[in-house]
């Protein structure tokens, strides 16, 4: 009796709008996947076809969702955070030894018909551990020691995944910076990372002197900003002395960065990664080679026009011009058949989902839920930006899926799991914390 009452009360506290949003995105995904295969004659829910398989994963995710929200006690996630994190670290290392290579990255386990990527799960475990650390142990984002610890927690799986050659997931981890920023990390960190990315691109694309010019401009702007904010403060001479030291340090660091970028680009990056970056930066025009995917995908999306060609009427995606059309390039189908309106609708769904998660997170009194919510939102955000950006030529071709939409069980499952954990935490926080 109490159980049923509990469940009813619980049902009222669940954020159903997020669940509708989730269902809508998965539905868009299944329809789009079907569109890429409908020519082969299988039905939309036929388990032989990819759309049918995706539907089965969707049903499985529903079951998992029910279990996570209604069966499991939410504090289990916090309890599991450290062991889970460590276990996944072991998996991440193990996959380098025992895994199979798919599309140039050795990051997959193969279990019979199923393929599973530990990197997908590591996002969840890392998010849980970050949330756990920021909640319980009273860490402060102003303490340098705590910042380094957190960066280490985030950086460790990042480094291992980088070794696996799964560049996409590494970039997703950068999204966790937003979480730390929300929790009090200085905005300068984000500025620093952004500056590094800008310098990286400029060093690759232009002669060295341009990089140094940009570095000088950046340092100048930094100095001006600091001086401005210190105006009126009592200790201006000290600030000035600190600033001089800081600028000198940054100049040295920047110079090292510029030179090492050259080294990294020509020696460390794999040829295909180099090519993709060069094509993105417009340094090579190779529509048959590395640029083929992007070129074809932009043709598909561009040809959609304002209102699209109509469902199942796309020619580019249906006839297989776009590679990986049901997984990483699924957005092309949406762009071609749904046009600008379709793209707008899907992107607004994502924006709504992310914003709603952040809003819910902000309403929580419990820091664990809040931090975890931010982690989840930033993860979806990074996937969205990188995936859609890649299909329209804003980002290099990095093979990461579009959350909930791209074909693939492990991706759909891990994103759904992350969402359900957040829903469970949000719905029950009063009861358990």
């Amino acid at each position, binding site marked *: 009796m109490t159980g049923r009452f509990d469940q009813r009360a619980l049902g009222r506290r669940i954020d159903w709008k997020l669940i509708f949003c989730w269902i809508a995105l998965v539905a868009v995904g299944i329809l789009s996947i079907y569109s890429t295969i409908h*020519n082969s004659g299988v039905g939309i829910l036929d388990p032989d076809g990819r759309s049918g398989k995706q539907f089965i994963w969707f049903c499985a995710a529903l079951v998992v969702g029910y279990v996570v929200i209604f069966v499991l006690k939410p504090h289990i996630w916090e309890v599991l955070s450290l062991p889970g994190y460590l276990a996944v670290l072991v998996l991440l290392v193990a996959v380098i030894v025992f895994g199979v290579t798919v599309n140039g990255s050795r990051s997959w386990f193969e279990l019979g018909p199923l393929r599973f990527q530990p990197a997908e799960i590591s996002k969840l475990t890392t998010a849980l551990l970050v949330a756990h650390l920021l909640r319980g142990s009273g860490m402060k984002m102003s303490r340098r020691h705590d910042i380094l610890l957190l960066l280490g927690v985030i950086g460790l799986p990042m480094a291992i995944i980088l070794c696996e050659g799964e560049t996409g997931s590494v970039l997703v981890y950068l999204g966790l910076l*937003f979480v730390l*920023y*929300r929790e009090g990390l200085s905005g300068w960190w984000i500025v620093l990372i952004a500056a590094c990315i800008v310098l990286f691109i400029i060093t690759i694309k232009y002669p060295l002197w341009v990089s140094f010019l940009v570095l000088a401009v950046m340092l100048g702007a930094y100095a001006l900003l600091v001086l401005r904010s210190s105006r009126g403060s009592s200790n201006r001479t000290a600030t000035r002395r600190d600033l001089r030291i800081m600028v000198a340090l940054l100049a040295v660091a920047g110079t090292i960065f510029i030179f090492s970028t050259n080294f990294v680009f020509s020696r460390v990056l794999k040829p295909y990664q180099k090519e993709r970056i060069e094509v993105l930066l417009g340094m090579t025009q190779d529509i048959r080679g590395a640029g083929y995917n992007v070129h*074809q995908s*932009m*043709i*598909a*999306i*561009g*040809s*959609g*026009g*304002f209102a699209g060609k109509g469902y199942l009427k796309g*020619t*580019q995606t249906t*006839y*297989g*011009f776009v590679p990986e059309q049901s997984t990483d390039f699924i957005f092309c189908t949406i*762009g071609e058949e749904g*046009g*600008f309106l379709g*793209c*707008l609708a899907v*992107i*607004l769904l*994502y*924006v709504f989902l*992310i*914003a709603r998660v*952040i809003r819910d997170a*902000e309403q929580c009194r419990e820091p664990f839920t809040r931090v975890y919510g931010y982690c989840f939102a930033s993860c979806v*955000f990074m996937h*969205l*930006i990188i995936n*859609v*950006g890649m299909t*329209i*030529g*804003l980002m290099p071709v990095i093979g990461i899926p579009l959350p909930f939409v791209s074909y693939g069980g492990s991706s759909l499952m891990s994103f759904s799991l992350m969402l359900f954990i957040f829903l469970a935490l949000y719905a029950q926080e009063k009861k358990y914390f």
Partner: protein
Amino acid sequence: MEIGRSTKIFIGLGLAAAVLLGKLFYIQIVDDRYKVDALNNSIVYETIYPSRGIIYDRNGQALVDNVITYDILVTPREVHAFDTLALARTLGIEEDYVHEKMAWYRKYRTRIGYQSQVFLKQVDAETYLRFAEIQYRFPGFRAQMRNSRNYPFNAGGNLLGYVSEVDAPFLKKHPEYRTGDFVGRTGFEAAREEELRGEKGYHIYLRDSRNRVLKSFRDGAEDKMAVPGKDITTTIDAHLQQYGQGLMRRKKGSLIAIEPSTGEILSLISSPGIDVDVLADIGHYWDSLAADPGKPMFNRAVQASYPPGSVFKLVNGLIGLQEGVLKENYKYPCDHGYWYTPTKKLGCHDHKSPINLIEAVKMSCNAYFCFVLKNIIENNKYSGVEEAFSVWEDYVRSFGFGAPLDSEVPHELGGTIPAAERYNRIYGKGHWRASSVISLSIGQGEIGVTPLQIANLGAILANRGWYIPPHIIKDDTPREARHTLIDPKNFDPIVEGMWQAVNSAPGTGGTATLAAIPGLDVCGKTGTAENPHGADHSVFICFAPRENPQIAVACYVENAGFGASWACPIASLMVEKYLCGEIRPSRKWLERYVTDADLMNVPYEKKKRQ
């Protein structure tokens, strides 16, 4: 502080979404480039090749038509291991060829991708059927139908020209063509390319990225049928052309026949020429054609410029009569030639003296026409030599000399007729006289004419004073007669001389008696054109019958000596063949005499003019 940060994060989220949407807006709505690309991508045009126009002779005999052949195509990606020997045997090729081709495809497999390649071109229907029967044993191979040129009648190879697949330099100049198209390169095929080629059509299919054709686009509603090329009817008589080619075999030169009343060219032969079986497989013969010292690609009949030789005496005689400085009964002496300066003589052969105009034409006396030209050039009627010479030049040009005749034969040239200024430059103004240009009297010196122009002279003589520009395409274009500056009545003594040259009794000095055909009243004039390149050219013009002429013929045989010995019998055989359909038994020996002769490499031996 906390609110501030989450607000900033919201703003960041909105900005990022706006960037994505902005770029989407740009490529989906603003930039049209991607829409065009998308059509190119998924739609495949399969070309339907039109059948090329047929070229007919004047009697409806096809000279060039089309035959269906097959190209064997291969999609290397779809090829499995197969029996190379069986394929080679079926297609009648060397097994090594198969291996070479397959090795080449392997080497360039990334570039080829899913495309089809032409494995073997222009396979005939019989071979195709053998291949089709066991095609299933060679996955990836298929045949594509294609029209190619067929030459049912061996006549006019030079005129027709050849057709070949466009190459890279051609495509650069003619962007409207596509790889795989065929284009006329020489002769009619080139000159009438636009009419003959027709318009290509296409089927539109939707295809996928592996170039697999999936279905017809909009059920073929957008397809375009090919428009066949226009047929062309020429004025050529195929049988006469073929006969003439036989006569000219193993001889260098030209042979042209014109119907005088219409200006239609009945045959136009340049020898050595190109047989049609060479045309059909030009690529195979190309190197040997280009290296041949006889220059078979060169159309001598309209491009060569020869001195006309003695046949030009007729023109000078007509001008003299028209100018009034020559009368039919004027007699001039011939002292085995003409002393144009006290020490210099233009020689002549042995004949009676003095003689009148008709006899001079009949015997082709050099001295007589030196007197004629002297009287024309040193005529007191005019202010001086220069003016008189200009008058002479106008007369000559009115015969169609000195400029192309617009015959529609490709690459026709016009020859050269000297103007007074030329002699002013050589000798100085006022410092030259008739004796300076005396060799023009017998068609030598600074004068060059094409064989076609000489044939046209024959037509003018046949018509007694006018001609319709000789032409080779039979169509409805109205063609106006062009009149020379000579009165028709002045032609009578000249034509009489030509008649006597052919039909006088043996031993009376007729120079062209070999050309006599009983009952046909052939009128002719021999010539022996000196030239700086070797032995004299043998020249002859004639027309027949004398009244109401049906045919005018001109013949040049290079380095063959007297006009009477070779050009004259050849031309007369043409006349007989055309007017009678066959050569009478009494003249069969002459036909054999001509066809057996090999005059390609006559040793140089100076002969007297005749």
